[in-house]
């Protein structure tokens, strides 16, 4: 039933036939929203007239937490924001502190960082792949993706000690050295995926039902991309070749040879194709880091108590979801004065209410899935 008071609370537009319209509450506990996201929808039958995402169910005030802890103590919290790409967050924080304090990082540590981060990127894309197709009603691809993802988690567990919420990078290096067993495992995984990725395409990409469900659904026009600050595969699906690894290179990325996949159509299918191509590019990067892994130390000497000089700095990295930027202000003490996390999912979700307008409800769920949201990252 349409209730004008509820509509006013959720800023829903009072358009359409109010006799027959109704307000639908989606979430916060709904498998289609991938986390505790709630969307209030104003529906005309199966069509969405307007939508309002309601956030904050997983809000932990991470920025305030960071203002009460030392720089070292903040590090484990990074993995709790985007739990699917914990290593990208690790990297952003350690690189930020290294930038502020001027710490050197040994070459071997940089290689290990890139190797593990790219493995993490693939595992994140696998989870998205499975969950997205589950949203569309396909169950089998989910099992394939999780079987392969398991291989990465096992591999990273031997190195980092954890399977999901890694806290592996250290200021000026990494926590543990890779051995020949790990490198062989990583190389075996690359070889396995090279051949196995074709089966993903056979199973899904060419499927007529999948194509019908995703082609021309949830189109993001290039004009909207910069107004909403979109980044990551969501942006690259709309034809903009922007990747932090390319535009503001950090670590050893400038020395590596890889492509930034771009699709032009801006629909769910384009975002799907971009992510699958990114898996291939990450495999390339992993292979190059294994081949070029230099000998040497994995950690440089850094002080036990970290006190960056007074000032401010930003550091941005490319997570599987887009650009993560951390802005930190230091007052010269061992506790950050102010930390701001600019998270990619937040900006990518903010366009959803615009995209959902006029869509079928089932298509809106496909759109939500194609944005690859991690709600704890949005809520922080």
């Amino acid at each position, binding site marked *: 039933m349409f209730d004008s008071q509820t509509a006013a609370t959720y*800023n829903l537009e009072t358009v359409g036939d109010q006799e027959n319209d109704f307000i639908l509450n989606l979430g916060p506990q709904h498998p289609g929203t991938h986390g505790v996201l709630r969307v209030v929808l104003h529906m005309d039958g199966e069509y969405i007239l307007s939508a309002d995402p309601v*956030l*904050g169910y997983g*809000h932990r*005030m991470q*920025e*305030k937490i960071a*203002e009460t802890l030392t720089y070292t103590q903040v590090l484990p919290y990074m993995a709790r924001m985007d739990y699917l790409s914990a290593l990208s967050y690790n990297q952003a924080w350690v690189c930020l502190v290294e*930038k502020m304090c001027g710490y050197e990082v040994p070459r071997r540590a940089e290689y290990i960082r890139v190797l593990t981060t790219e493995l993490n990127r693939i595992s994140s894309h696998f989870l998205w792949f499975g969950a997205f197709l589950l949203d569309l009603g396909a169950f089998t691809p989910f099992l394939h993706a999780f079987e392969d993802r398991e291989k990465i988690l096992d591999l990273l567990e031997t190195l980092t000690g954890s399977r999901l919420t890694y806290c592996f990078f250290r200021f000026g290096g990494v926590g543990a050295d890779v051995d020949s067993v790990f490198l062989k495992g990583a190389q075996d995984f690359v070889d396995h995926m090279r051949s196995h990725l074709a089966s993903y395409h056979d199973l899904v990409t060419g499927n007529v039902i999948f194509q019908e469900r995703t082609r021309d659904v949830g189109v993001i026009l290039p004009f*909207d*991309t*910069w*107004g*909403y*600050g*979109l*980044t990551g595969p969501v*942006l690259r699906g709309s034809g*903009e*070749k*922007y990747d932090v690894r390319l*535009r*503001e290179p950090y670590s050893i990325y400038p020395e590596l040879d890889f492509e930034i996949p771009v699709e032009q159509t801006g629909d769910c299918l384009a975002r799907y194709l971009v992510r699958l191509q990114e898996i291939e590019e990450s495999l390339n990067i992993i292979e190059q880091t294994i081949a070029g892994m230099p000998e040497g130390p994995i950690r440089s000497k850094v002080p036990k108590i970290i006190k960056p000089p007074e*000032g*401010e*700095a*930003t*550091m*941005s990295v490319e997570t599987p979801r887009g*650009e993560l*930027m951390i*802005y930190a*202000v230091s007052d010269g003490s061992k506790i950050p*004065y*102010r930390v*701001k996390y*600019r998270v990619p999912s*937040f*900006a990518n979700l*903010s*366009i959803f209410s*615009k995209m959902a307008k006029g869509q079928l409800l089932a298509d809106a769920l496909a759109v939500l899935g194609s944005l690859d949201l991690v709600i704890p990252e949005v*809520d*922080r």
Partner: protein
Amino acid sequence: MSIIETALHDVNVTVEAQDYQQSGIHAQAEIQAEQLKSVCRALHSFCFFLETVTAVDNLSTETMQGVWFFNHYRQSARFKVVIETGRNNPVFPSIGAIYPGAVWHERETGEFFGIVYDGSKDSRCLLLPEDVTFHPLRKDFKRPEQQIAGIH
């Protein structure tokens, strides 16, 4: 001339170049509140994307800094815009009509710092519950356990 200076050629603001290697920011500008919209219109027409809208509370100088970050897809050009105001009842202009993505950032920063974004079409709480009466990122905010024990 960098793309930032080109974009802001017709707007009367001073763009200061920053040490990118040290800070990750290419340039910054301290402007007046009434200049913000014209700066944003100029940046939007040059396809700068909005990275974030945030604020920094300075208790020692009794000021509130509004901070806006912009960047460009085609070249590396992070641009920081700063507006400084008093920390009692700070008000900044809303840029939601120019950058629609700013609405959520403004809602978040507004509830965390007690900032009013003047002209915003949506100023509800975003992440905090709708009935909160405190602003957790203000430096004089005391956490519940601090309030009880009287510690600082």
